[in-house]
């Protein structure tokens, strides 16, 4: 099995990382691109992008293969990372190409989409 991350242009946020099903991927500011801190009910709203055992990671169009990785999930298994950031989807994005979680403050911190460069899209205050 292969888990592929692709870059896609999404309305209102521009070109960002998405899953193979075109679900926008997010990073969680408190993770500090180091470790997964979303746990408990946070995981219900922001499911991490898992890397099943025996699967491989693939970089789709526009994605830098060298920035792809995985971290152990405290709940078990491994979570896909990009530039060190654990990646999550958002249950509020019910269709592909939505980014309704961008800049949302929920479950203890802020959530951002992430560019193919590996930089989260943090709005200027």
């Amino acid at each position: 099995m292969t888990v592929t991350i692709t870059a896609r242009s999404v309305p209102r946020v521009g070109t960002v990382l998405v899953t193979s099903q075109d679900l926008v991927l997010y990073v969680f500011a408190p993770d500090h691109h180091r470790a997964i801190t979303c746990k408990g009910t946070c995981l219900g709203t922001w499911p991490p992008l898992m890397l099943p055992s025996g699967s491989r990671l693939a970089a789709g169009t526009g994605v830098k293969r060298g920035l792809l990785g995985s971290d152990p999930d405290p709940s078990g298994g491994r979570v896909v990372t990009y530039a060190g950031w654990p990646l999550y989807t958002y249950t509020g994005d019910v269709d592909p190409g939505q980014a309704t979680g961008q800049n949302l403050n929920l479950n203890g911190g802020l959530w951002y989409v992430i560019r193919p460069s590996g930089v989260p899209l943090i709005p200027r205050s």
Partner: protein
Amino acid sequence: MLLSGGGLVAGAAAASAGWALSGQPAAPPDPAVIPPDDDLMREHGVLKRVLLCYREMITRVQAGGPLDAQDLHDAALIIHDYIEGFHEGLEEGYVFPRLVEAGRLASTVTTLLVQHARGRVITQFLLAGATAKGVASPGAPARLAAAMQAFDRMYEPHEAREDTVVFPAFRQILPATELTDLGQYFAELQHQEFGTNEFAAVVGRVASIEQNLGIYNLAQFTPQVSQYIPSA
């Protein structure tokens, strides 16, 4: 619209994996532990009471009265921390995915997810505006009241549908032993995230806002009906 392989089902796997691999052996069922659907419904009671607080604030603004920033902030914070940051995570992680997997209520679940997302945007707006300076700016009370009204109008039917259709369907598809285990897990999660007695604490917070707004006394809502029911 709901993606079968998308975030929701992926979330079910992640959330369920966390539940199954919590690292602790299953404890004997505690008779004091509430079934998960009952637990969610009593949390809806907290939501209902905040909706009533919003309604009172809306009424005052529409009558030309002031909007109290602290009351608005405290009410919206309960929604943010307890309803959106906890209750909805339980639904999204443990209830909705199981229903979708069972081929039940997929369209309803999609709508509920969209409404959760929309509600969070409204709450963020309310929290941002709930400052002394925020409510004093021209037009702000009316905008904040409109946002609260939209929130109320969405969440009243939302929670009613969950209580009467979604949760009963969930209870139907889950084996009794899983219901028991899940109820215990919900209690553990609440303890982990908020400490002990959180439900009582949040009810206390809502009651305090109701007292500030003058709507805590339940009896005041009993109507006088003799003017239109002469025999009453």
